[in-house]
């Protein structure tokens, strides 16, 4: 069997086929469903690990399917793809465990886990996409697969959130389609090439290319929650916590940010984009989003909404890293892709734990929760400090590289944005920690469930602790060989041709 062609398809199939199978299981088949879920998650990680190992040894993995004459559906494994796909698969396993614990006893679990698996399939497809067409196909599929997850609960609020989500994402998808077709007619190809494939075009089309870039950013910016296209994100918080965790840490927002990385690096090429003057407006937009998201987060009392606005702010760090066109800043953006994913998922897991175990949804109800749920709040503390950027946690290194990159590229104003954002992050995270650890707990929690001597169920406790430890390790061992930094340096050196 030709592994080169089969392995990407197998990676995709490892969650697609179990997902379709799960749809046919009835509600009572808990064991079968759990087994399918976990087995497919583990299988996926094994396959991706194999692909990674193969890629390091020089094997080439690519699957093609002719979609239209002249355009293929391509799945290819490259350094940037592997970064995102490893993040997705790893966090998916953790989220599956969490979701199994969280949704225990809720209705429509088969439907939920079926769409859950489809969602990850779409994310892996986005990661492995080898040209803009494949990216577009899986991007739209992601929209369709995440909608049922958002409206899962079926309440009026959930349905309204789902409606808003669709309005935003389908409009964004239409813009993305338009710009993709336009690019295809201008350039004749859509393959992701390392320095971009648009620099060879005639100078007369440059204004058109600038317009197309704006359309692309608008289409991708909806999912990446750039201001002012971020409106769906706080509303989508009505979804169950595993969905929020997956959406915000891994799937949807990261897909948008990843798309922007791809567009700037593999479609336009960073030098060409800088020559056209496209990166500066993008940096401004990212900076505005960062500050705006942090400010809105400050004003929220509901925990998940505060975390949602924090996501809006943090994902723009990635875009800022890309837009400050320098290798060091890009390293910062890329490692922040991973760091923000791991940290945010920790925070959402903890928020879900608080809601499930104690019925807490607002920060004002969180007095003294650290005594009752120490492990959860310790994980939350680590995640929060990572977000603020305190060493030796992972978030510090993202900010380090972003700051250095900004200095190297001569864009000193970015440092101001980073500082302001850190201050705002501290302003809205530290009060939560203070309230949780140092205030007196109330007489009774809003809706408590006891789990014997443990603070909460194992399936709910283990994932945030694991991801908190990952945050710690990512920061502590940042310079280790085969670590994330090495990987990001490799991607940037290949992409920037330096």
């Amino acid at each position, binding site marked *: 069997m030709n592994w080169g062609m089969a392995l990407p398809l197998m990676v995709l199939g490892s969650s697609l086929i179990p997902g379709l199978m799960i749809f046919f299981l009835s509600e009572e088949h808990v064991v079968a469903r759990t087994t399918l879920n976990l087995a497919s998650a583990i299988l996926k990680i094994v396959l991706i690990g194999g692909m990674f190992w193969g890629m390091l040894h020089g094997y080439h993995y690519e699957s093609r399917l002719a979609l239209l004459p002249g355009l293929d559906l391509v799945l290819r494994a490259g350094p940037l793809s592997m970064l995102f796909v490893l993040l997705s698969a790893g966090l998916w396993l953790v989220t599956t465990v969490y979701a199994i614990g969280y949704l225990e006893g809720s209705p429509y679990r088969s439907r939920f886990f079926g769409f859950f698996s489809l969602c990850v399939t779409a994310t892996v497809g986005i990661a492995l996409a080898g040209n803009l067409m494949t990216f577009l196909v899986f991007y739209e599929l992601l929209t369709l697969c995440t909608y049922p997850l958002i*409206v899962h609960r079926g309440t009026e609020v959930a349905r309204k959130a789902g409606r808003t989500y669709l309005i935003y994402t389908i409009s964004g998808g239409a813009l993305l389609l338009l710009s993709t077709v336009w690019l295809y007619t201008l350039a004749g190809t859509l393959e992701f090439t390392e320095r971009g494939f648009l620099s060879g075009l005639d100078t007369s089309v440059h204004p058109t290319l600038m317009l197309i870039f704006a359309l692309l950013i608008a289409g991708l910016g909806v999912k990446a929650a750039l201001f002012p296209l971020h409106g769906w994100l706080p509303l989508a918080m009505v979804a169950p916590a595993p969905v929020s965790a997956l959406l915000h840490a891994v799937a949807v927002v990261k897909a948008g940010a990843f798309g922007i990385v791809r567009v700037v690096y593999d479609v336009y090429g960073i030098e060409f984009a800088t020559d056209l003057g496209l990166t500066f407006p993008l940096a401004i937009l990212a900076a505005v989003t960062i500050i705006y998201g942090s400010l809105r987060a400050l004003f929220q009392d509901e925990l998940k909404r505060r975390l949602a606005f924090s996501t809006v702010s943090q994902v723009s760090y990635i875009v800022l890293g890309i837009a400050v066109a320098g290798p060091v800043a890009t390293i910062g953006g890329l490692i922040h892709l991973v760091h923000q994913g791991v940290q945010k998922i920790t925070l959402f897991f903890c928020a879900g734990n608080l809601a499930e175990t104690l019925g807490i949804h607002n920060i004002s109800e969180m007095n003294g929760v650290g005594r009752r749920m120490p492990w959860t709040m310790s994980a939350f503390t680590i995640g929060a400090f990572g977000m603020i950027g305190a060493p030796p946690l992972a978030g510090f290194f993202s900010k380090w590289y972003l700051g250095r990159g900004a200095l190297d590229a001569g864009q000193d104003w970015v440092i101001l944005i980073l500082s302001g954002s850190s201050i705002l992050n501290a302003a809205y995270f530290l009060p939560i920690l203070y309230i949780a650890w140092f205030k007196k707990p109330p007489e009774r929690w809003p809706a408590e469930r006891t789990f014997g001597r443990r603070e909460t169920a194992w399936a709910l406790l283990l994932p945030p602790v694991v991801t908190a430890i990952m945050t710690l390790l990512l920061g502590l061992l940042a310079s280790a060989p085969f670590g994330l930094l090495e990987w990001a340096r490799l991607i940037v050196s290949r992409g920037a041709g330096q």
Partner: protein
Amino acid sequence: MELILEGVPWIVVLIILPLTGGMACFLFPKISKSLGLLTSLAVVACVWGLGWQLIEEGAQRYAIGGWGAPLGIDLYADGLSLVMLAVAALVGLGISVYSSAYFSRDKANHFWPLWLFLCGALNALFLSSDIFNLYVTLELLGLTAVALVALADGAQALISAMRYLLVNLMGSLFYLLGVAFLYHSLGSLDIAILAQRAQPSPAMWAAVGLISTGLLLKTALFPMHFWLPAAHACAPTPVSAVLSALVVKASFYILLRMWLEIFPMVGSSFAQLMGGLGAAAVLWGGVQALRQTRLKMLIAYSTVSQLGYLFLAFPLGMSVAWRGALYMLLSHAVAKAAMFMAAGNILAAGGDDRIADLSSITQRLPLTLTAFSLAGMSIMGLPPSGGFIAKWLLLEASIQSGQWWWGVILLLGGLLAAVYVFKVVGHVFTQAEPKLEARAVPARMEWTALVLALVVIFLGLFASWPLAIMEIGSPFGEGDSG
């Protein structure tokens, strides 16, 4: 094996087989169901045979009775006809399977002969190379369709069937008038010969205008679409599917043929008019679909909207645009059939199809709703479905030719479609309790809808094959890039 495939005149078999089947069903009503299913399967096999023949030998021309044109009548099959035949056969098979479980005994006795006659008329239409022959098949098609619509009970059904009949007659009348003008000025009825002899003259323009408008009426282009929703709402479900998927496409096919072969020199303002009407259809149909309270009416207006897309290819005029329109035709046929079948299932289960009450029914019919959603994906133009491929091709054409406003219409139509599709699909995810007194829907009906919906998805993934087949015999003209 090859000898059989080569030797048999599949063209003729394709026409004769359904007609004989229809007569047999009429004569032997007891076994009409099995006969009908068998005939549909056989038609699929014949199309496959014809396809094999075309791929091996190129476009086929068959002279009936050995008399070639201009004296005799020719039958002509190229890539375009093959694609239409394939879609008709596939959707026809689906509808046959669906109807075998849908109709009760007495209705079925009427249904099967009419349905097979309609199949025969369709096949003959797609294979005709003679404009008068086209008129005959068009009339046969119209009459059988009207009869099928009238199969439903009630005064409302009769009224809409009568209206449909009148519309058919009016359209055919104008078409015949145009044919008469053409014959008078050019002296032949065969399309190939007409293509050679065509000269611009006032008679010619009059003929073009009459033929086109007659066909526009039958294809339900805005504002001539008024008969479509009423006919769909009252007809039985399989009949609605046939109407939306196949019957309106037949007149479009004739228009396409005429446009490609005989009228290519026509100036651009008429094409722009058709494009403008198509755009209006897209928007009007979309908005009307949003306002509907009943599911079948919503789907009917969706058809009106999607048909508008087909006409956007006329002002664009490039090979890419024709292929896009044709692919849109294909995917819409299959997707709409699947959608109507899903609606029929919901109707059968719940007794009525009011959208507001869908929440309680949809919980019980997961397969049906999956079919509806997948078909909806194609209607919206989201990947990976046939509708997406078509939308891509049309967008490519509109950008390449510089007429970007048609592209805007395409995108807007997609957004409107998303709104009304999700209006229905959103009812699945509610907290409503499943209705207790829902009737059981036969598995055959649910699975047929689902299989057709999956075909649409496959059309989206393996598009290069149908697109290659379309090019056999180069119906869209040689040398066109794109």
